[in-house]
């Protein structure tokens, strides 16, 4: 059995490769179709002689035919190398940036994810139990409203209320500049706990609240809906009535129902995580959060091919990894799954 799991994980992990390849190809093609290139973006309106331009293009490998560029980069990817930046600055390994930026996004998404799951589970369960009542209706309205909130707008309102008006929470950044934190994982909350740096913990948690609340609430709408609908479905199933017919206590039945309702939600969590990453871009922009989202937007401006390709590939890989983890959790929780 355990050998089965290991093999399953390996093979399932191999399935990430085509996904990564597809996205790399899409982005590569789109990026090269239209004019402009990173060297121009760097040089910009500076008065630089044409020979030097050529020299720079050569260094960046942009003078090679497209298919060579395509496979060159693919070759690098095979070696776990995301290439080097082509603009502002040139020649820095993209992975350096990813190492720096990814933990920020990860920290933001983890917290948002947690918040959204908790809110979603609570509101969805309440809605399902009180099905057909006004409580249910208001939960469903909450779900729709939360889902359709526009992140920059909602974030702006929260910033105004908690940052400017009440003056209780920071509105941007990850940690106060005056706090020294020795980073190990790059997840500030975790790092400050590891290094027992309590001021840093307080500061980083405070910085996290508004962005993760914004993203978490927006995402929770989807969960409220899914949890509610699944719960309603499960509560209608025979085995729930069978539990009742056996005289099992109500809260236990709700718990069993929740467990069953949670199984299909797990599959959706993988996809939700992707949506979360998308939402993270807008959240990061609104809260000046130094994550992957703001990074990719910056790089796009310079048309930094390698950085954008690298980021997209990395995201694709990460999303694949998440769905792998989700599948594993699914397999762990649902005895019906076979490897």
């Amino acid at each position: 059995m355990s050998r089965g799991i290991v093999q399953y994980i390996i093979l399932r992990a191999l399935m990430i490769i085509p996904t990564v390849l597809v996205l790399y190809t899409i982005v590569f093609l789109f990026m090269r179709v239209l004019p402009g290139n990173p060297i121009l973006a760097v040089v910009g309106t500076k008065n630089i002689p044409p020979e030097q331009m050529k020299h720079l293009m050569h260094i960046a490998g942009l003078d090679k035919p497209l298919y060579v560029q395509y496979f060159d980069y693919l070759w690098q990817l095979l070696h776990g190398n995301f290439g080097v930046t082509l603009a502002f600055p040139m020649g820095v390994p993209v992975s350096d940036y990813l190492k720096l930026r990814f933990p920020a996004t990860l920290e933001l998404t983890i917290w948002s994810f947690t918040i959204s799951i908790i809110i979603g589970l609570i509101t969805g369960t309440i809605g399902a139990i009180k099905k057909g009542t006004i409580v249910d209706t208001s939960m469903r309205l909450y779900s729709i409203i939360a889902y359709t909130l526009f992140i920059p707008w909602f974030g702006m309102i929260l910033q105004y209320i908690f940052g400017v008006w009440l003056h209780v929470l920071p509105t941007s950044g990850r940690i106060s500049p005056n706090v020294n934190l020795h980073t190990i994982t790059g997840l500030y909350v975790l790092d400050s706990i590891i290094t027992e740096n309590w001021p840093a913990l307080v500061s980083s948690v405070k910085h996290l609240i508004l962005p993760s609340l914004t993203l978490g609430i927006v995402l929770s709408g989807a969960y409220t809906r899914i949890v509610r609908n699944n719960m309603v479905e499960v509560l209608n199933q025979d085995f729930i009535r069978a539990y009742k017919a056996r005289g099992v206590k109500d809260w236990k039945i709700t718990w069993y129902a929740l467990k069953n309702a949670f199984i299909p939600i797990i599959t959706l969590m993988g996809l939700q995580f992707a949506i979360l990453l998308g939402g993270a871009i807008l959240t990061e922009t609104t809260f000046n959060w130094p994550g992957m989202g703001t990074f990719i937007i910056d790089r796009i401006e310079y048309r930094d091919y390698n950085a954008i390709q690298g980021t997209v590939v990395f995201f694709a890989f990460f999303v694949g990894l998440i769905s792998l983890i989700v599948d594993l959790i699914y397999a762990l929780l649902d005895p019906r799954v076979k490897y």
Partner: protein
Amino acid sequence: MLEVEDLTVYYYTSKGVVRAVEGVSFSISKREWITFVGESGSGKSTVAQAVIRLVPYPGKIQGGKILFNGKNILELNKKEMRKLRGREISMVFQDPMTSLDPLRKIGDQVVEAMTEHGVDEEEAKKRAIKLLKRVNIPEDRIDYYPHQLSGGQRQRVAIAIAAALEPSLIIADEPTTALDVIVQESIMELLQELKNSGTSIMFVTHDISLAFERSDRIAVMYAGKVCELGRSEELVSNPIHPYLKALLDSVPDVHSDKKVKAIPGNPPDLRNPPSGCRFHPRCPFASEICKKEEPELVELEKGHFVACHEVV
């Protein structure tokens, strides 16, 4: 032991009020097997669910009394009801594929049925093994999940759970409909054994042949009402209600060459049931009074009740 008087259940759907069960009365005594038979939509399952107060949403028990050992179940509060369920009255559902929690081991589910009613864990485990043995599930299956068992095995587990605390009444709501005949046979036998050991069985089925096989008494339901009720041999040999007669005529039998005849027309829409006798639009003997007045369930002979104007 169980007396039901004038039970009425309505479903409040968005399309209108469905009068699923109206004015049904009957009783069950100890060690008795009573079968409710009828076509789909006749209300037989609703009656069964009402007895344990598990009518699904949007159904509501509208009126009547359900006296269990003299106590009206409908007046019990939640906690009392919970104590009653599983200990005094338990239920087996139609579809064995969905009536067990797919995420929990069957052993745990059997054990829980007992611990929830105060049996201590150790004792419950011991009894669970015995119970499963009794329903012919090998001991090692105790750690299996429902999906690892076949339909028949699951239904036997469900019966084991229902019988765990030796309740006085087990309600079996079409427990064999989803199963093949050979498995059906084994389930029926299991219920028979339970009955022999002192439990009353309230059996619900649409298969009239099956109904006659093992029941002591049979109640025939049509459109939310009981139209004939009596000892099973009596009903086979001497059916009185035109519906029962027609029903018996419409069912083929393996061992006889009789011709079958369909009942003309369709079952009524219970949002808008026919006036008078609900069978009158399909009844060949219907007269004026049948259209106007609802027939009462009358005891024609001892223990043989019929609701029909024409025969009374």
